[in-house]
Structures are given as structure tokens and as C-alpha cells.
């Protein structure tokens, strides 16, 4: 379990950095004003992305250790599949609901950023770092 926590912590931290890179790239602002029309200082976004993703990275890591044998594929691919599942549950459902209420310019960037930070970065790293 300790290994899963450490792997989740590192993968979560890295996914937070990726999320922040999307913020500072300006690409996000091209589609929407983050978040829900509230201008927020970049330092706060950096701290926020890292804290949020690291804490949740640890939690997701613990669950990964619990369901490890049941996740299809092997090695790093196992982590990628897990990352995709997390992305579907956490970062597709709620943005889709928000999009249905009309704020799709807010929701679409979240789905895309979530894909790169959670499904790809977190998934790859947890798959690489954690092995039973």
C-alpha cells in the first residue's frame, strides 16, 4: 500500500503540473474564461492544481492497488486503462452535465485537459511506478 501511495503522490503531482501548463499556455482562455468567468491569479492556479491533483492522486493510487489484478492489460498499459477509467468517472460526467446546462465552452476544455493530465500523465506514471 505504501508503494501505491508514493506512486499516486508522484503521478498526481505530475498531472497537476500538466494541468497548470494547460492554464499558462493560454489555450484554455482561447475557449473559455477560467473558471466560470472568475479571473484568478496564476500562482493560485498553480498551488491549486498541484494540491488538488496530488491529494486525489494518492486516493486514486490506493484504489489502483486494490483493483490492480482486475484492470485489463499489463504493465504501463494497465495504468493507462486505469487513467482512462478515472477520466471517464471524474472528468467527463460533471463537465457533460455542465455542458448540458449551456456552459460547454467551460466544459470542453476540462474534458480535454482532464484527458492529458489524468488519463495520459497520471495513468502512464501510475502504471510505470506501481507494480505488485
Amino acid at each position: 500500500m505504501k508503494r501505491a501511495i508514493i506512486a499516486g503522490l508522484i503521478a498526481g503531482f505530475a498531472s497537476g503540473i500538466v494541468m497548470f501548463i494547460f492554464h499558462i499556455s493560454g489555450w484554455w482562455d482561447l475557449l473559455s474564461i477560467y473558471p466560470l468567468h472568475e479571473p484568478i491569479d496564476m500562482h493560485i492556479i498553480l498551488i491549486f492544481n498541484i494540491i488538488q491533483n496530488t491529494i486525489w492522486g494518492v486516493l486514486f493510487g490506493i484504489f489502483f492497488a486494490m483493483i490492480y489484478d482486475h484492470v485489463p492489460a499489463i504493465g504501463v498499459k494497465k495504468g493507462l486503462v486505469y487513467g482512462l477509467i478515472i477520466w471517464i468517472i471524474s472528468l467527463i460526467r460533471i463537465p457533460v452535465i455542465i455542458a448540458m446546462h449551456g456552459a460547454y465552452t467551460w466544459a470542453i476544455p476540462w474534458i480535454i485537459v482532464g484527458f492529458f493530465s489524468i488519463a495520459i500523465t497520471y495513468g502512464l506514471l501510475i502504471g510505470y511506478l506501481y507494480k505488485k
Partner: protein
Amino acid sequence: MKIENAKMRGFYTGLFAGFIGAIAVHISLMVSAMSGFHPDYAALLASERAIEFILYQLIYELGQVGISGAVFGIFYSMFYEAIPGKGVKKSFIFGLIILLFSNLWWSSYNFLLGLLTGIEKFFWYSILWTGAVYFWPVYGIFLGIFYERWK
């Protein structure tokens, strides 16, 4: 009724459990609107378009919770052995995991943003997403009932 394929069983049981979860969402939403928790919805309920609003909202809830429920039902069938507990208890725990992963992720996101920025509305959004506490456990219970029966 028996469904041999586990993933298909997860899909169908998740879909039906999602429909029941959607009704739970709908009832609680109407009750919270009538008790003044959602001023916009309360205004719609008091207007001439009340019936239209109730029906459209129900169709919307059935659609969105039903589809998510079906997808999550497939995940339930995939990780069935790994989830602790037996029967309905197992699916109830799965419902709580879904609540944690989907809604509480966004609650913590808004809560943290509220703490860092001091903007009050983020705390409000945080409470709003936590509100799903009344339908994912319901979804979980019915998922287990259907899943075990259709085995």
C-alpha cells in the same frame, strides 16, 4: 431474467439502476426547490410552465444518470471481485466510490478554490456537487439488486 455476459449485465443493470437514481435526483431536486434551496427552480415551479419544467427535468435526469449509470455498471462488472462486501453491500460500496470519484472530486476542487481565492460562490458549488450524496448510494443499492437477480 438471466444475462450470461457480465459486461452486458453490468450495462443493463447500471442503466435501470441509473433510471431509479434519476428519479431520486428528481424528487430531491423538486423538494429542495420547494424548500427554497434553488430559487431559479422554485420560480419555475411557481410559473405557468411548472408541468413542462418537471417533465423536461425528469427526462434530462433519466438521460444523464441513465447513461452514466450504464457505463459505471460496466465498470462494476469489471471490478466486481475487487470490491469488498457481498451482494447489495458490494454495490452500495461501489455507489459510494462513484460518489467519491465523480462528485466529491468537484466538491473538493471548488472548496479548495474557495479557500485559496476567498470567493464565496466556490463554497456554494462545493455544497452543490456534494448534493449527489442522495442518488449514488440509491444507484448502488439498485445496481446490486438487479445485478444479483440477473446473474
